[in-house]
């Protein structure tokens, strides 16, 4: 029920409340309050104008590997 899209932090405003994020060339300003530990270069999930979580790139890779392992076996 909650549309959210991934984007990368390219700049954090002074004060740390706002960040500029980028996704496939699209740039927008989002609130950073909900992910205080985020830093430039991080990928985040954006919803309703706020970054709501940081994407764990490592976990993404592991998941994918696991799924291939477990679920592409019939091939």
């Amino acid at each position: 029920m909650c549309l959210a899209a991934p984007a990368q932090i390219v700049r954090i405003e002074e004060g740390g409340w706002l960040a500029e994020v980028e996704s496939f060339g699209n740039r927008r300003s989002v609130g950073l309050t909900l992910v205080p530990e985020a830093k430039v270069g991080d990928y985040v999930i954006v919803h309703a104008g706020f970054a709501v979580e940081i994407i764990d790139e490592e976990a993404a890779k592991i998941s994918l590997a696991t799924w291939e392992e477990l679920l592409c076996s019939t091939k």
Partner: protein
Amino acid sequence: MKQEQVLLAHGDGGQLTHQLVQELFLRYFNFPALQALTDAALLPPPAGRLAVTTDSFVVQPLFFPGGDIGTLAVAGTVNDLAVSGAKPMYLTAGFILEEGLLLVDLERVVASMAETARDAGVAIVAGDTKVVERGRGDGLYINTAGIGVVLPDLDGEGASLDGSRIGEGDAVLISGTLGDHGLTIMAQRAGIAFDTPVQSDCAPLSSLIAALQENCLGQVKWMRDPTRGGVATTLKEIAEVTAKDIVIDEQALPVRDAVADGAAILGLDPLYLANEGKVLVIVAPEARDAALAALQAHPLGREAACIGHVSGGSGQVYLKTPLGGHRILNRLMGESLPRIC
């Protein structure tokens, strides 16, 4: 002009209207029959059937990456003529100005119209200006009506483009990427604005379509510019008219990454975003490759693709998903509002 802004008096048909016409419109639109300022322009008898169309343009913002309301007003009407198989010849231009519009903005738009008309090889032959009170317009609305001529060599036996010749197996082509204009405009809207590298695709397609027709004489069965409502709505309409199904391959749809991402941000679907410089074409299967080549050889058609085919059926449009599923595409339903959930 002394005034910097449009006043109501610019539309009362008196002195200020006269000045606006003389000092602005006639400076850019220099067709003799228009300059005469008669009630109607008199034009030589045309050499074939007439094609006639009209559209009003109410886009906001007036200026956007890739064009402005003036480009759009000319290109939109030119394209409706071109996709009807006609050579666009003449346009009329009706301006509805909102009190307070900056005259420099009006001039920019008028200059765009003149330039786009020149590119498209059409003349603006008649015009009108009205001014409405502030709060009863939106800066500037433009209506254009277009007159084209179906030249006899494009108008041979059986060359009707109304969709009646569409048959099973025909190929569905698009001249380029989906949704660039719609996404550009949505990204500019107050309340939801974001920066995007996407630009409107708005452009007159007359030369692209002329090139296509030359290369596929008589084999183009149907054309349409997928504007409001996007590719999905346009395909649904022709599917209903023909009572045949159209099957589109989702993976074949040319969509820029930034458009796909921008659409995801807004909760929209590129299949329903407006295009202003694209043409959907249905051709006989044997003409598919030639048509695609003709489109791709033109600067405005480089990203042309074959996106599907016509099959027997009952007027449905199916989208084949990458996983092999099918879903039905209907008309756009309800205003496209950006969503967050």
